[in-house]
């Protein structure tokens, strides 16, 4: 269980995280989605006590992170897979964490097996690891203490499509066992594969959140015509919510409704389909774009 309430971080006049609130419940995988620099990492560092919040609060398992006793046994955290001493072997990195959180040496081998790092790879120095291997090592480190909650910053970064599906299975199993997972990504398709719920953030603010299915269906209908302006006006008159995107219009209605309106207005349609993932992608881009416009205007 992770709770974030009105969390805000300001650096001088710059607001990196602006009054965000959400919850991650046990049994779910929540994707924290936003473009680079949206404030995802800052928010996650505040949740784990590494960065003091300007205002607001966050709790993990009902307590502020800094009040957790031996947090390594309750929360698995990976904030930057590259933040490892390059001179240590992968196994040594896990050994150190195992000593600190108080789990037996055998757990190191278990964790290595879970993330699929071989004996030979574990004996190599982190300096010689690929990004994908570092991600697996970071994940092993997060899983070491058999935690109830996982907080992972860009865990799929550097993984190949196969690796992303492997991670999906791993996190799915973890959540199905009652675990809580929060992971961030700047790539929609990555997070779409792994997460159940999405929290979209742009310029430090939450721009949308909900279950993945809900957000996907909220992608509505994508329509393109010979005269998008007239269609936009007609749809607005019909009191249907419509958004203009670079590839046409995204309409919050069934394709049949949109087609009927276009027919009534004698507008030639070039494309008409229900939103799907592309709709979500467009919504993601347009939502983050609109917040960045607000940001520059302010």
């Amino acid at each position, binding site marked *: *269980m992770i709770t974030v309430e009105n969390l805000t971080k300001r650096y001088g006049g710059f607001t990196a995280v602006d009054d965000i*609130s959400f*919850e991650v*419940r*046990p*049994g779910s995988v929540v994707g924290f989605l936003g473009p680079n620099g949206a404030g995802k990492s800052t928010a996650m*560092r505040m949740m*784990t*006590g*590494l*960065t*003091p919040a300007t205002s607001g609060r966050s709790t993990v398992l009902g307590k502020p*992170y*800094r*009040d*957790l*006793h*031996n*947090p*390594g*046994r*309750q*929360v698995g*955290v990976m904030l*930057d897979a*590259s*933040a490892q*001493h*390059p*001179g*240590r072997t992968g196994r*040594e990195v896990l*050994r*150190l*964490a195992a*000593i*600190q*959180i*108080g789990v037996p040496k055998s757990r190191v081998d*278990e964790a290595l097996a*879970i993330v699929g790092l071989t004996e030979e790879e574990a004996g190599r120095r982190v300096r010689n690891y690929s990004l994908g291997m570092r991600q697996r090592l970071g994940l092993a480190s997060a*899983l070491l203490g*058999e*935690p*109830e909650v996982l907080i992972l910053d860009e865990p799929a970064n550097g993984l190949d499509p196969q690796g992303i599906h492997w991670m999906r299975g791993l996190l799915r199993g*973890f*959540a*199905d*066992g*009652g*675990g809580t997972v929060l992971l961030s990504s700047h790539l929609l398709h990555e997070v779409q594969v792994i997460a159940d*719920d999405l929290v979209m953030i742009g310029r430090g603010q*939450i*721009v*949308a*959140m*909900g*279950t993945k299915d*809900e957000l996907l269906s*909220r992608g509505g209908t994508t329509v393109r015509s010979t005269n998008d302006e007239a269609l936009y006006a007609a749809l607005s008159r019909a009191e249907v919510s419509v958004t203009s995107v670079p590839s046409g219009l995204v309409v919050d209605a069934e394709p049949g409704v949109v087609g009927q309106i276009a027919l009534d207005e004698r507008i030639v349609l070039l494309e008409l389909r229900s939103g799907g993932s592309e709709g979500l992608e467009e919504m993601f881009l347009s939502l983050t774009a609109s917040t960045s416009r607000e940001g520059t205007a302010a």
Partner: protein
Amino acid sequence: MSATDTSLNAGTDSRVPAVEPSGAARPAPTPGAVNGGRPGVPWSRLIHVELRKMVDTRAGRWMLIVMSAISLIVVGAFLIWGPADEATFGTLLGLTSFPLVMLLPILGIMAATSEWSQRTGLVTFTLEPRRGRVVAAKVIAALLLGLVVTASAFATSALANVLGSSLSDASGAWDVSWKVALGVTVGFAVFVLQGLAFGFVFLNTPFAIVASLVLPTVWTIAINLISALREPSKWLDLNQVTEPLFSGSMTGENWGQLATSFGVWVLLPLAIGSWRVMRREVK
């Protein structure tokens, strides 16, 4: 606003996990297993892990190897080419100590700065968010390692003394009083702590090393140039005040001078450094 009525903000019981925690092959949560007891990771584990971090990297290991090698070479060279009648335990101990006094602060600095320069602090401070405990564990671990180094310095000098007197005409006298032994031990501890303190202040290895080498030298030069500083410098020059410590001739005033210098060169930076570690954002 639709964002507020989504399932994320809905009641907590609407999606109870249907599946029981699975077997050991899967990362299964272990609810409530570790909530009791005193807050924080136990000291024994924190100190253990900090000790291990100081010697498990190439930099740390080479530091120890270089320290031992220089000491051995210096002692060996003195036994072979030095004046035989001066080759006593005390002289050999002094020779072993010289490189250690230079290098022990660097050991302390690396212990303090690596969390920031290698960014391992991201892991260390999420596993123990009570950062003051991590700082304290580093101080204790560095002192323990300093003690091991001190003990090996004594052992090496003793061995060299026995070898020297049996294989050549070296004096081999056992002229180290308990005062000298205590002084050397305390002195080493002071220099390890100074390194740590500088490391915590700068949180950057090269800066801290340069500062710990340059600042005392600048101070010594300043004393020589400005005569008004000569009197206070007896109380504020760590190198000067540790001299009687190593020679075992500490007077009451000497202890006072050591305490003041220790306060200025070790405790003050340690306090500033600890404050920085506690407050700084870990990125």
